[in-house]
């Protein structure tokens, strides 16, 4: 029963668990001023885990392991690498956080959450899926409310917990309906049962809707998005960055597998629902982002809108559509982590996070300003950054599937996006501080920020220029769905 394949399939998770345990044991022995090294340990450990997994844990033919609980394939593997990378970067950004950086628990929670996300990406059974989602979510509830001394952080944690608990209960009800009607929880067997057409139309709508409540909460689709701005604003900035990237991508990993593998039987009904949700999500996210004055809230609404763009690929329901979703998420994770990283680096020194406080930033630290420009232009979908290519692929998939109206909505939205992203850059480059003494108030970067932000900037540019390998991996991942 236990073959090397089984170990290979959960090799990254084993390594993450080992890393978390090491951290638990080592960290209490460190002195107070050494505690931030837990960030180096986490980031370095995750990096090594990624290399080991790439060397020994690569999937071959898609196989079901652990009695069908886990699907060992490229789709899951690619997402796992993305999550681990995002977590490593988040650990680096967390290191110099004043209130959370020197507490080992934060890093352990981060690792626990990644463990759950990794399992979300490969779960092939509804029971496993639910467990994975909860494993990923509960540490995040704690991380969002990590700074007990701050009311808004506590509020963020509590709000996230309440919304999350409610959403996952509703989703669980949806799962139980599926089980009740089909008698199986295995996603791949579900497909066969559902293809036989023994689910009436109202039931299929109900199942889709219930499941979407839970996953829509994870990826912050409108109308399940209300938590996002408040939670992002209140939680520690690196955690907000992690929530808006890895956690969202994990939701998409589940969406893709669930809808493409288990529910193709009633594709016409769910593509329609998803198309409507995608259009609403993009529009609401972008329109609300225009009037934001707090950078974290602006990024929260922008990340809502980006979930909408990525959905276009899902709606297309083709191999290119799936590949474009995966590609979009890869580009988006790099870009948004960069954006939150810049916000974190800036507010660490200044303690400020409204747009007005960014006035004169290009004189205070030209490099940080350039990195912010890279992130925001990529979010706006401008070349040569990852966001442009990702958007074109998603739109191409939409046009191919004849969803031209949805692509047009997407395009109108990206115009709105260009407006508010450039508007934010205006503060950075154009406006000056009231005293015009920017040179006397530099914004220095500590080493973890310099490393993390430089890596992310290079990544964003690489995805946007040399996109063939990234698309190749995304396509290989998408191939596993058909």
């Amino acid at each position: 029963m236990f073959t090397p394949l089984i170990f290979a399939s959960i090799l990254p998770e084993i390594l993450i668990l080992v890393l978390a345990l090491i951290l638990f044991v080592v960290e209490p022995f460190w002195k107070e001023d050494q505690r931030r090294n837990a960030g180096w340990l986490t980031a370095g450990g995750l990096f090594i885990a990624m290399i080991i997994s790439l060397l020994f844990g690569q999937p071959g033919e898609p196989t079901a392991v652990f009695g069908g609980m886990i699907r060992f394939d490229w789709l899951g593997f690619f997402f796992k690498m993305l999550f681990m990378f995002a977590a490593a970067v988040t650990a680096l950004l967390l290191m110099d956080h004043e209130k959370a950086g020197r507490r080992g628990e934060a890093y352990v929670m981060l690792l626990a959450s990644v463990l759950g996300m990794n399992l979300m990406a490969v779960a092939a059974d509804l029971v496993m899926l639910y467990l994975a989602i909860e494993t990923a979510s509960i540490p995040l509830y704690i991380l969002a409310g990590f700074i007990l001394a701050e009311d808004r952080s506590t509020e963020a944690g509590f709000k996230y917990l309440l919304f999350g608990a409610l959403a996952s209960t509703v989703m669980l009800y949806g799962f139980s309906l599926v089980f009740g009607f089909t008698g199986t929880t295995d996603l791949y067997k579900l497909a066969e049962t559902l293809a036989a057409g023994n689910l009436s139309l109202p039931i299929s709508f109900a199942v889709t809707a219930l499941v979407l409540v839970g996953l829509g909460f994870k990826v912050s689709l409108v109308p399940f998005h209300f938590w996002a701005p408040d939670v992002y604003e209140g939680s520690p900035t690196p955690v907000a960055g992690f929530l808006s990237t890895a956690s969202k991508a994990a939701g998409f990993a589940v969406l893709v597998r669930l809808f493409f593998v288990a529910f193709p039987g009633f594709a016409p009904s769910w593509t329609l629902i998803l198309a409507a949700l995608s259009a609403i999500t993009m529009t609401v996210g972008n329109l609300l982002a225009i009037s934001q004055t707090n950078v974290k809230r602006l990024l929260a609404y922008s990340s809502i809108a980006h979930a909408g763009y990525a959905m276009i690929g899902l709606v297309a329901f083709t191999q290119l559509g799936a590949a474009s979703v995966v590609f979009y998420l890869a580009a988006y994770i790099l870009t948004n982590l960069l954006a939150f990283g810049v916000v974190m680096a800036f507010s660490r020194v200044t303690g400020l996070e409204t747009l007005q406080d960014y006035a004169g930033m290009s004189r205070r630290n030209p490099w940080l300003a350039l990195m912010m420009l890279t992130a925001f232009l990529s979010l706006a979908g401008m070349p040569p950054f990852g966001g442009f290519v990702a958007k074109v692929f998603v739109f191409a998939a939409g046009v191919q599937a004849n969803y031209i109206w949805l692509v047009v909505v997407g395009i109108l939205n990206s115009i709105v996006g260009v407006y508010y992203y450039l508007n934010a850059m205006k503060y950075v480059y154009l406006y000056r501080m009231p005293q015009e003494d920017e040179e006397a108030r530099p914004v220095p970067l500590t080493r973890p920020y310099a490393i993390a932000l430089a890596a992310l900037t290079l990544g964003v540019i690489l995805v946007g220029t040399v996109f063939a390998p990234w698309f190749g991996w995304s396509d290989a991942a998408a191939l596993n769905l058909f």
Partner: protein
Amino acid sequence: MNFPILSFITFLPFLAAVVMLLIPANRKTEVRGVALAAATIDLLLSGWMYLTYLLNHLTGYQFIETYDWLPALGISLKFGVDGMSAPLVLLTGIVMFTGVLISWGDYDEKIHLSAGIQDRPREFFAFLFLLAGGVFGVFVSLDLFMLFFFYEIAVFPMYLLIAIWGWVKTREYAAMKLTLYLFVGSVVALVGALAMYWTQYQNTGVLSFDMLLMENAGFSPVFQYIWFLPVFLGFAVLGGIWPFHNWSPDGHVAAPTAVSMFHAGVLMKLGAFAALRVGVMLLPEGAKQWSWLIMTFAAVAVVYGAYIAFVQPDLKYMIGFSSVSHMGLVMLGISTLNYNGLLGAGIQMFSHGVMTALFFAITGMIYDRSHTRQIPELGGMVKVMPFAAIGFIVGGLVSMGMPGFSGFVAEFPIFMGVWGSQWLVAVIASVSIIITAAYIMRNIRQVFFMPMPEALKEHHITDVTALDKVAIVTLCLFMIGIGLFPAVMVPMIETGVQNILRLLGGA
């Protein structure tokens, strides 16, 4: 010819931008040096490329380079120039070179002259070169995806360049307006391009963005009829076509001098060129169906732009609207879809690019010294800056279409072409020649030859710098050269026109 000259020309500005960003911010001279070196190399390379094409009597697409970029979706980095795009590559080289020269940013303590770019020149030149690289990329791309890629790269630096270094009063408004107009245009065209891509796949089973393959994609007349307008107008927004021209004069006025030069000199050609290459050449049936509409828009632009330019008291607005009028002539030439009209459009793109770059350069020099652009407040400039005066007059003569200058070589075939297509439109459009002559001569008289107003004498107005003179001479040489020896450009553009006519079915 193994040297990849086109990719060298295209990627050199990007490389230079990165190098400049790596130089510490306070080493301003080094930054300018890198900028000038890169611009000079690019000018020489594009000149060499141009001469090679011309002297060897080449036809069709030349200097072709192909690198597979994403074979799974048929995206390749395919570069090549034909008779239509080679002059525009040279034009970009010229404007880039002169733009760097006049932005050098000398600061003279004695007379408080601060011409050019003083504030953060490192970022300025880096963004300007990103823009230049994008422009080169569009002119040489034979792959539709890459064309869009470079097109967008050419759009967004404009926002930063105008918003950061522009004229304080209108820069935020103008920069955002310009960016939104151009972005809307390009994404509308993008949807059209994606539709073309998938339809080609349905028709021929070829999954490719290669425009040379798309020429044979067999798009149905209905498809062309539907998609021609979004694609053509989407690009033509950047070409300043009426009624979507509104961003252009505002952008010109708000932009710093070198950016105005790029904007009017090269970017507007980018729009016209892309509209021609993607709209007319890939959807020729659609072009025939809709040419009446394009012609109407263009005719309105020609006359209306000239009239607005006539009543403008602001020198930069005057040139901005004259650009709308002259680019209207380009569109008019394209809309005839006949030999003469297209030939004239091709020459006019080059001629207007050089001419308007010169106008904006000299306007910038005047403004840096007098701190006003209101025409009635200016005067007597010929005494202090005779060199600039001569340059402005040469530009004016080109603008009026005087024989012996490039403007005549360009405008004459356009009007011949329009006459052959719709004589009435030619008559209406020719009104603009009179209006143009009127406002150009009036302004030359006021700005250069009237006595200098008292208020202006306090400003310590000085002559232009040596670098400015190099820029003026370079630009004038090209305008006079083509005017006197049309053979250095016309045969080349003829080969480009033949290629377009082949696609139009010898119409």
